[in-house]
C-alpha cells in the first residue's frame, strides 16, 4: 500500500532484535485515521514491541514510520508525544501516591513563572477534557484510592491532555470487569467519532469483535494479515493468531460431584496492613467438581490462598480437608494432607528458577524415597521421574530434565508445576491464575488437565481474574467481593453480566448496593 495522508500511522518493514532474538521481522501496518484498529497476536508475538517502537520506547533496527504521510524518526517517547501519539500501557504508568491531576500533568506541567506549578489552571484544563469525552474522574483523588477502571481513564486522560490524536491501548481490558469493559468500548467509540485513531493491542477475540473496525494479526514477529473485523469470525481470528485451528470453548462433560472434601468456615484473614482482607468466608468443594472463584484482583483472593496453604496466618475460622483442620499449621503439613497448589506467580512461588527441571519436579518430595535415602539425594531416581513427566506432559524442549527451569518458556514452566502438583495425587488441587501469561495453545492444555483431574474425582479450586476462564472451566462459580463469597452459582444458571455486577459489589438483581 502507498503512503497516504489519510492514514494516521503507516509502518514499513519494521525489524527489531533483542540480542539474537528477532522480535519483529519486516512488519508492515497501515492504520486509518479515525478508526479503531486492533493488533492481535499471542504473548510474545511482538505486538507490544511494534507499538513500543511507534511510541519511541524501542528503536527498530530497520524500517520506517509515516504519520499522515510524513516520514518521522521517533527516537523517544517525547518525540512520539509531540507527534500526537499517546500510549496506555498494560501495567499502568501511574504514581500511586500522586493525585489524578499530578499524574496527568507530570512531565508537561502547567507552570506560572519559573517552574512553579499552577494547579488551578491544570484543574480547569483537565475538566475540559473530562467533559468533552465523558471520562468521569475525581481530579483530587489519589491513584491508590481509585478503582482500576478509573486508573485507566486517568491514563487515557494523560494521553489526551498531551494532545494525542493516536491512542495506543496495550491490553486495555486485562484488569477490568465486564461492565468496565463495555464502558471502555463506549469511550473508545466516542474518541473515534471525534476523529481520534485508536490502536488496541490484545489477544482477546471477543473484544476485537465488539470494538474494532480493522484487525492486523502478528505471529512470531511476522505480519500475517489485516482483515475487516465484521467479515471474519472469532475462530478465523484465532486460527490466524495461532497458526492452526483451535477450540475456543473447553470440551467437558457434566460434573459428577461426590461428597464434600474441603470446607472453609467463617474464615478471617488479615493482609499485610493488618486489615481484614478475608471476612467470614465460607466455601465448600466436593470431589469431582471445579469451583471457580470469580472476582477482581485485590478482593481477598491472595489472602485466601495464602491462608489455605498456610503461607499466612488465619485470624479465625476453620479450613478442613478430609475432615481435618489445617489452618495455622505449616505449608508442609498442608501438602501432606494432599493439597496441591499451582501458585499465581510461577517464577516466585512455583519454581526455583536456578534449579533444573528434575530438581523442581521433586521439590516437595525430596525427603521421600526413592528421591533420597538417609539424607542423600538419588539423582538417578530424580531424573527417571523427570523423564517420565516430561514425556507425559509434553514439556519442551525434549530431554530438558537437566536444564535450568529459567530457560524454559512460560508455558513449559507452568507445565513443570502442573506435572509436579498433579502427580502428587492431591485430593484438592488449587490453581491460581493458572493460565496467566500463557498463549492460546497452552491455555487449552491447562484447562484440559484441570478437567481431566476433575473427572478422576479430585476437588479443584480455580481462582482467576479472567471471568471467561472461570465461566468456561468451573462447575460452580463463587463470586468473591471484599473478602467474602457473595454468591454461588451452578454453572449454566447465570450469565456474565450478573457475575460482573457482583464482582463490582452490586446486588444480583442488578442494583448497586
Amino acid at each position, binding site marked *: 500500500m502507498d503512503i497516504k495522508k489519510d492514514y494516521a500511522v503507516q509502518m514499513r518493514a519494521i525489524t527489531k532484535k533483542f540480542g539474537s532474538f528477532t522480535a519483529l521481522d519486516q512488519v508492515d501496518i497501515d492504520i486509518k485515521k479515525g478508526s479503531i484498529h486492533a493488533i492481535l497476536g499471542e504473548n510474545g508475538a511482538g505486538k507490544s514491541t511494534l507499538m513500543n517502537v511507534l511510541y519511541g*520506547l524501542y528503536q527498530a533496527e530497520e524500517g520506517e514510520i509515516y504519520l499522515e504521510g510524513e516520514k518521522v524518526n521517533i527516537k523517544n517517547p517525547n518525540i512520539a508525544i509531540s507527534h500526537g501519539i499517546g500510549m496506555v500501557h498494560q501495567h499502568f504508568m501511574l*504514581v500511586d501516591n500522586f493525585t489524578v491531576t499530578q499524574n496527568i500533568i*507530570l512531565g508537561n506541567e502547567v507552570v506560572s513563572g519559573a*517552574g512553579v506549578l499552577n494547579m488551578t489552571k491544570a484543574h480547569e484544563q483537565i475538566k475540559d477534557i473530562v467533559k468533552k469525552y465523558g471520562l468521569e474522574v475525581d481530579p483530587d483523588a489519589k491513584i491508590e484510592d481509585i478503582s482500576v477502571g478509573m486508573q485507566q481513564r486517568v491514563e487515557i486522560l*494523560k494521553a489526551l491532555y498531551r494532545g494525542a490524536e493516536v491512542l495506543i491501548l496495550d491490553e486495555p481490558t486485562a484488569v477490568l470487569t465486564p461492565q468496565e469493559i463495555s464502558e471502555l468500548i463506549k469511550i473508545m467509540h466516542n474518541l473515534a467519532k471525534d476523529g481520534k485513531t485508536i490502536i488496541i493491542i490484545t489477544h482477546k477475540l471477543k473484544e476485537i469483535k465488539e470494538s474494532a473496525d480493522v484487525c492486523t494479526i502478528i505471529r512470531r514477529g511476522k505480519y500475517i494479515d489485516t482483515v475487516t473485523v465484521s467479515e471474519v469470525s472469532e475462530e478465523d481470528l484465532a486460527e490466524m493468531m495461532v497458526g492452526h485451528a483451535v477450540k475456543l470453548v473447553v470440551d467437558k462433560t457434566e460434573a459428577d460431584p461426590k461428597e464434600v472434601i474441603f470446607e472453609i468456615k467463617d474464615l478471617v484473614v488479615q493482609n499485610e496492613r493488618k486489615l481484614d482482607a478475608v471476612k467470614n468466608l465460607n466455601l465448600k468443594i466436593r470431589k469431582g467438581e471445579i469451583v471457580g472463584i470469580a472476582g477482581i484482583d485485590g478482593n481477598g483472593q491472595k489472602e485466601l490462598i495464602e491462608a489455605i496453604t498456610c503461607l499466612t496466618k488465619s485470624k479465625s475460622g476453620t479450613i478442613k480437608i478430609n475432615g481435618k483442620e489445617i489452618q495455622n499449621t505449616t505449608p508442609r503439613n498442608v501438602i501432606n494432607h494432599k493439597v496441591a497448589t499451582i501458585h499465581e506467580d510461577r517464577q516466585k512461588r512455583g519454581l526455583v528458577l536456578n534449579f533444573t527441571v528434575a530438581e523442581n519436579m521433586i521439590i516437595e518430595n525430596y525427603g521421600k524415597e526413592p528421591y533420597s535415602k538417609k539424607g542423600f539425594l538419588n539423582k538417578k531416581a530424580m531424573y527417571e521421574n523427570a523423564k517420565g513427566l516430561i514425556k507425559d506432559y509434553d514439556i519442551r524442549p525434549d530431554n530438558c530434565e537437566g536444564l535450568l527451569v529459567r530457560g524454559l518458556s512460560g508455558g513449559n514452566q507452568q507445565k513443570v508445576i502442573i506435572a509436579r502438583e498433579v502427580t502428587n495425587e492431591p485430593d484438592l488441587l488449587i490453581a491460581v491464575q493458572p493460565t496467566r501469561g500463557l498463549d492460546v495453545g497452552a491455555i487449552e492444555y491447562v484447562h484440559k488437565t484441570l478437567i481431566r483431574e476433575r473427572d478422576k474425582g479430585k476437588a479443584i479450586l480455580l481462582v482467576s481474574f479472567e471471568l471467561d476462564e472461570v465461566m468456561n472451566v468451573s462447575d460452580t462459580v463463587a463470586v468473591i467481593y471484599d473478602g467474602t463469597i457473595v454468591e454461588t452459582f451452578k454453572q449454566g444458571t447465570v450469565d456474565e453480566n450478573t457475575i460482573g455486577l457482583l464482582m463490582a459489589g452490586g446486588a444480583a438483581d442488578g442494583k448497586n448496593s
Partner: protein
Amino acid sequence: MLDNLFLLIGITLMYSTPLIFGGLGGMVSERSGVVNIGIEGMMTVGAATGVSVAYFTGNPWFGFLCAGLAGGLIALLHAIASITFKADQTISGIAINLMGSGISLFMCRLLFDGATHTPAVERKIPKLFGDTRITGVAKNLNVDLTVIFALVLAVVLWFVFYKTKWGLRIRAVGEHPAAADTLGINVALTRYVCVVISGVLAGFGGASVTLAIISQFSPTAISGQGFIALAAVIFGKWTPHGVYGACLLFGFAQALTIILGGGNFAVPSQILSMLPYVLTIIILILFVGRSVAPKASGVAYEKGAR
C-alpha cells in the same frame, strides 16, 4: 533558668545543623530513587576539604563552598556506580564511606606534614549577630550562620519538592521511574542531579562541623553524624520539614549530653555520649517499619523491565 533554656536551644541548633545538611542531602537522593548511605563519607570529605581550603586561603566561605564541591564529586562516583552501572546502592554507599574517611586522612597527612589533625583555622564561619561580644539572653542565641542556612535550605527544598514541576518530577522518578520515563522525563539525569546535590549538601554538613562548631579536622570530627542523618530521613518520612524536625530532635539529644555533662548532675559522660546513638536506634526500631520509603528507592531503573 531562662539562660539555661536558651543555651539548650542554641546548642541544639548548633548540633542539628550538620545533621540537617546531611539529612536533607539523603532525602533528596532517596526521593529520586537512589539510596545514599554514603552521606557519612561525603560529610567527612567535606569536613576535611572545608577546613583545609579555609586554612590556606583564610576564607571560611570559600572553604565551605569547596566542601560542597568535594562532597558532590564523591557523590558523582556513587551516581556513576549506582545509576549508570546499576551497582548495588548499599555496597556502593559502604565503599563511599570507607573511601571518604580514607581520602580525608590521606589528604590531611599530605597537606600537614603527616599530621592526622589539621591545624585550627583562624577565621570560622561568622555568627548571626557578628563577632561582637553580645551579652544577655541573646548571647546564647547568637548561632552560626550555617544554622540559618540549614533552615533556609529546608524551606527552599520544601518549596521545590511540593510547589514546582522539578519537585513533582523528582518524586515521580523515585516512586515510579517507568511512568516518568514514558512521559519523557530523563530518569538517569534526574537521579544524577539529585545524587550530586545530595553530596554537595553532605559536604556542607561536614564543613558546618569543622568550620563552625569546631575549627579543625580530625578523623573523629564526623563520627556517625551521617548515619544519624539517615535515621532522620526515615524518621522525617522523606519530607524536608520532617527531616528538619527529626534532626532537631537528634541535635537536642546531643545538646542534652553537653548540658547534663556540665557538672551538677552525676551522670557519667560515657553514658551521656551514648544518648544520640541510643536515640537513633530506638527511633529506627519504632519507625522503620511504619514510614513508607519512596517506592523505587534503592532499585536501579532498567528500561523495559516492568
